[in-house]
């Protein structure tokens, strides 16, 4: 499978990656090669095989529904790019 510049830009948008046409052109070749490479999977004998999500087929462990983590809001917000009054700041989303 081969991807062109507009397809790369579409995937970049879904991936939330800013990308101009020049950059998209640069990625198109490598991405096309990778998609062509993984097409080798088409020949695999996987009729009736269960997909494997975990190497040991372990199941999700459950724990009692109890509070275990302390409140560290100030510590975590100290490393944020922009906070005010205990809130994370982002550009206005509602006019």
């Amino acid at each position, binding site marked *: 499978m081969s991807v062109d510049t507009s397809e*790369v830009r579409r*995937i*970049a*948008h*879904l*991936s*939330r*990656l*800013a*990308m101009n046409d020049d950059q998209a052109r*640069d*990625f198109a070749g*490598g*991405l096309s*090669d*990778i*998609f062509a*490479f*993984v*097409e*080798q*999977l*088409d020949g*695999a*004998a*996987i009729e009736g*095989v*269960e*997909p*494997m*999500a*975990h*190497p*040991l087929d*372990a199941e*999700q*462990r459950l*724990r009692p529904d109890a509070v275990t983590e302390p409140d*560290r809001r100030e*510590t*975590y917000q*100290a*490393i*944020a*790019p*922009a906070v005010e009054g205990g809130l*994370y700041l*982002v*550009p*206005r*989303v509602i006019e």
Partner: protein
Amino acid sequence: MAQETLSGWVRKLQAREISSRELTQLYLDRIERLDPQLNSFITVTADQALAQADAADARLAKGEESPLLGVPVAQKDIFCTEGVRTSCGSRMLDPFVSPYSATVVERMNAAGAVMLGKTNMDEFAMGSSNETSFYGPVRNPWDTERVPGGSSGGSAAAVGARLVPGATGTDTGGSIRQPAAFCGITGLKPTYGRVSRYGMIAFASSLDQGGPMAATAEDCGRMLNAMAGFDERDSTSVERPAEDFTAALDQDLKGLRIGLPTEFFGEAGLDERVRGVIDAAIEVLKGRGAEVREVGLPNSHLSVPAYYVVAPAECSSNLARFDGVRYGYRCENPEDLMDLYTRSRGEGFGDEVKRRIMVGTYVLSAGYYDAYYLKAQKVRRIIADDFRRAFEDVDVLLAPTTPELPFALGAKADPVSMYLSDIYTIAANLAGLPAMSLPAGEIDGLPVGLQLIGNYFDEARLLGVAHQYQQETDWHARVPAAFA
């Protein structure tokens, strides 16, 4: 001093032949003097290291014994370290000073290890050459025009040049074993779930596994004793009782059944000289009583393609958290929220990381899930089943770690050729099996790695086989001339 191993230093510390502060200062001086040639460290934490050394000396003075008490180590910069920058080799996390420590770091600290700093790595552990780091490439101590391998290339180069006696790595598709092979050291990827992933920045969660990198198998066993163990904070941590990974070091190899996967020897890409080194290593093991037979892993040729669906899919999901809002890099003057997300990510991530995020986003997008991700997960099972059958007849598998010698910086410009340098390591990740690389020879002054793959939870046996090999050979003891 460059010749002494991590285990040797622990014994000298216990015998009070050297203090932790003296030893720490020795290695800090080596890093300052020699690392400019390698770029193996992103951050050196000299003051904290000396404080930890003093604390270790106080414990040693009280006669305390602990597996790593007073010995210097380095942490791959993928492990969160409270109060210390944890960059993951990325501009995205260049400003990130972690508010907590990874379980691996906490455990090693508790065992008395002294952290000298954080080692360089491919950005978000995505790479096989250490050329994708935001902090510049790491150079191979055996030839500084060549790559050290990746993604744990900083740890491998630092240990190879004896700038530190032991370091941590992580292995998603070969990122401990391939750089260990390229830098002439020993490195172990444990069974999936052995070592906690808590605080280890996630790349592909069903494959990522942390492990030790050091000069010898004994060192790796000692480090793993401190690193491994159940952790309720990692939902995929396996609940098993503590184990001594050095327990089988002295076990002889009489009757050990070693399997040689024919697929790992017949590939066209295998350098004949590498093959010669592996053949010689097999003779050494036979000489110590091991029995060797061929086995088949008929689906192993599908490992790399399956990996490049599964790993990018998981990566695209894991790296969605880096959005410029709560921590890490944020672009200047965002116009709106979408601009904040896309430019922070577009400017914060390097090309290889973007490439994998896009592959992952694509294979998980509506209409493509079955054709890619589900199919790759099925292929993953048939690859794991191949191993299951092989281990019915043999105790360990033996193969080259890499098909070729360490390559020159810039030599692999196209992504797929870079991906194929992990052709012999990826299958063990897909199956979740423990596997290690140890030095087995030299060609034109460059080290060659031998890979051992074990059955689930059989790390102690792998380390035992490697240790027996290291009793008979001295490849693990060789240090590049410029760093001796």
